[in-house]
């Protein structure tokens, strides 16, 4: 349950107050718009207007300007609003890693990050990893080493694997395993995932 959704009446009254006060303010400032809005679900529309927060972020080198409810997670924003469904929902609790994306180059569980916390940040999702039709070396290595079966954890594994290499946590198979243990794979492709990372990390360059 989202903490903002706690079941008490405080939220309701706050919301009702917001509806009323915003309606009054709006009527005072822009009577014509207010009159128009008064038809139908006026207070609903005002509430929506005032409960959303402007958001600017860059996803896969594309800028997005939006207004979102503060309770929307980065994960749900990516999947439901931007239709970037490569980022997966597996637990919503930061326990499985399926939702891993890069925020300013670092791996982050997007289910534990609200969209509005990412103002001005640079997000990379699995859709933004390849260079056009040319796969990222990690994507190619996952195919070569069969680092997946059902494929659902795969985008998160790959985003995490790229970060793992760039963090320099690839000095041994056991170090890779340790630093990849935040990404669960229920099909059990772990040894193959490690094989893929070992191959890509050879040479010690950032990727």
């Amino acid at each position, binding site marked *: *349950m*989202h903490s903002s*959704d706690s*079941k008490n009446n405080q939220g309701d009254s706050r919301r009702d107050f917001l509806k009323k006060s915003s309606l009054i303010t709006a009527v005072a400032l822009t009577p014509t718009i207010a009159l128009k809005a008064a038809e139908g679900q006026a207070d*609903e529309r005002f509430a*929506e207007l005032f409960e959303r927060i402007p958001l600017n972020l860059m996803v896969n080198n594309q800028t997005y300007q939006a207004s979102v*409810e503060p*309770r*929307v997670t980065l994960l*749900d924003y990516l999947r*439901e609003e931007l*239709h*970037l*469904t*490569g980022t*997966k*929902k*597996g*637990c*919503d*609790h930061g*326990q*499985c890693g*399926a939702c891993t994306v890069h925020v300013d180059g670092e791996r982050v569980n997007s289910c534990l990050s609200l969209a509005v916390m990412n103002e001005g940040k640079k997000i990379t*999702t*699995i*859709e933004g990893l*390849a260079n056009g039709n040319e*796969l990222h070396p990690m*994507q*190619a290595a*996952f*195919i*070569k080493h*069969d680092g997946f*079966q*059902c*494929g*659902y*954890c*795969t*985008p998160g594994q*790959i985003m995490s694997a790229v970060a793992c290499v760039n963090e320099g946590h690839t000095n041994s198979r*056991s170090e*890779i*395993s*340790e630093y*990849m*243990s*935040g990404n*669960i*794979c*229920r*099909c*059990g*492709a*772990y*040894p*193959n*995932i490690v094989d893929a990372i070992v191959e890509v990390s050879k040479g010690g360059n950032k990727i």
Partner: protein
Amino acid sequence: MEKRILKDENDRVDGIFKVTGKAKYFAEYALPGLTYGVLVTSTITKGKITTLNTKAAEKAPGVMAVLSHLNKPSAPGYEQDGGSPLKIFYTDKIFYNGQPIAMVVANTFERATYAASLVEATYTKEQFNTDFDKAVADAKAKKLQGQPDYKRGVEDAYKTAEVKIEEKYHLPIETHNPMELHGMIADWRPNNQLTVYAKTQGVKATQGTIANVFKIPNENIRVNSEFVGGGFGMALRTWPVEIATIMASKYLGKPVKLMLTRMQMFTMVGNRPAAIQTIGLGAKKDGTLTGITHLAFGETSVYENFTEGVVNMAKFMYQCDNVNTQYTVVPVDLGVPIWMRGPGEATGAFALESAIDEMAHALDMDPLEFRIKNDPERDQQRNLPFSDKNIKEAYRIGAQKIGWNERKNKPGSLIEGQWKTGYGVSIGVFNANRGRASVKGILKADGSLVLQSATSDIGPGTGTGMTLIASKLMNIPADRITFELGDSSLPPAPSQGGSATLSTVGSAVNDVCVALKSTIAELAANANMDATSNFVEVLKKNNLPSVEMTKQSQAGKEREAYSMYSFSIHFVKVKVHGLTGVVKVDKIVSVGDSGTIISPKTARSQMVGGAVGGVGMALTEESVIDHRYGRYINNNFADYHVPVNADIPEIEVHFINKPDPYINPMGAKGMGEIALIGFSAAVANAVFNATGKRIRNLPITPDKILAST
């Protein structure tokens, strides 16, 4: 779909989609006007809903409907008697804690989630029991026969044997927990036309269930399930929550998406049932088995019965003239279980293969030698020869690869500092099924081949295997072949379960390819071309853009003449820490004996995945219930421990790779189940070999090792 380029024909045909995020799973179809369903669940375990206050939820922003037993749309199949699924929204009874009692539908996920928190229910409560052990021990508790009793020779012959053991084995509830959450998108249109995007192991089965519940023709229902994020058995049926989603779409006339939470994955989509098993074994001093008794209790629910093949293996896996089995199911106030990978056979194999190890120890024999000594030449249960069985060869390969000669038969012999090393072995076996399936083949003048069948791929690599079968037969490169699946409008195929897809659908692929080849040969003859001409030339010469045909394939009388099984041998090396009781799996060798290997890369991955699942079953997985309240207390990935990367050592996989001469045209048998069956016993046996401590109660957690004497 963009063009696939396979660097290696053994690569997964859908790999490119999975690594780029383009593979679309059920929840990822952006239908216009999509709405979001969120479930409200019961907070009591047994009783009846007295009031359900949905007013606040209905008033909440963006809410379109709150569905419950008070206002559900008609599902005529639920109005009939018969069958015992949980008839969602057609009852005010509560059968278990966390049962869905209402669904809030709103225009965003967040709004639906918030509004669901506003629904208030009151109940009349009844006494309940969620404790399986207690139900089994309670003489007055309801108990049902799960399978007819089996007897060969003398009942309980072990009791009078020269050497005997009798032990009890416990398995907790395990939860499938595929990475993809369960759910559905349902889009009910006027004139009773329904499209669903489902997470299912069988699109035809889902279509059939929906048709039955809503009493609309199968043809009105299109089930799409191209990519499935794992199932492990939990997607082998259409669950009440899916029916609820369809009801909501029917009610609103809008597409509705439901995606369960991880917590709800523990209560709404089944589990591996808990089990208590007693094994009695008798043997002569020379190691000849003289009696096997396998008695099992399995968990089921009060509202719907679930049974599986817990005691199957004991009937044929070892040469023994006296065998008796009994399988009883005992209802508790929990959601109904469902098959989980390896299903009942994996439950049974833990007990039987642990007991075999215990008997070898009692005889002071190497457990491998003991197994080889009692390896049967024929299936004594069916009195038939095995179609294909290479267990002795599998033992030899596995023993060599794990370093079995390093093992000492006396437990606790290999100690290095605080770490004790042990080796364990076990066997897995599962019926080599083959069902009936149809495949359509379209051979095109551009040199490509399209194959279609309403089968599924929950991860094993169905499309890859089918493509390789066709590629070899037709001599067409794998990347010129497309295998379409996961769509109920394609030619029918059974659900993906019981390790049968490759055998069943692969046979139909084989048959359609053979038929296409003979059609091409006829067309070549008609055009006075050489019979061996390339099909592209033949089609062009005949002015045909393509030829297509559909073939149905099924098993024949060979199954009456031979006993058909897939086998696996698992070798495990563990290190057990003396002070903390921590078990580290150090090395795994699994050998598969399942006929011809069609797709070596995905086959290996399937065996690796089974071993990883087996490590979880053996060492970490247990769904824990607070029986005072009837609620799961570890219903999340932080507390329910599936193995993570760091838990898994090197895994070696070997295959016998010899065709089964009778099973199907490819000589290939399934391996999804055998990859896991028996594995947990290999770990338990290795722990015993390391420490002398026999843990008969899964999972083998450090506390149990420390407490054991």
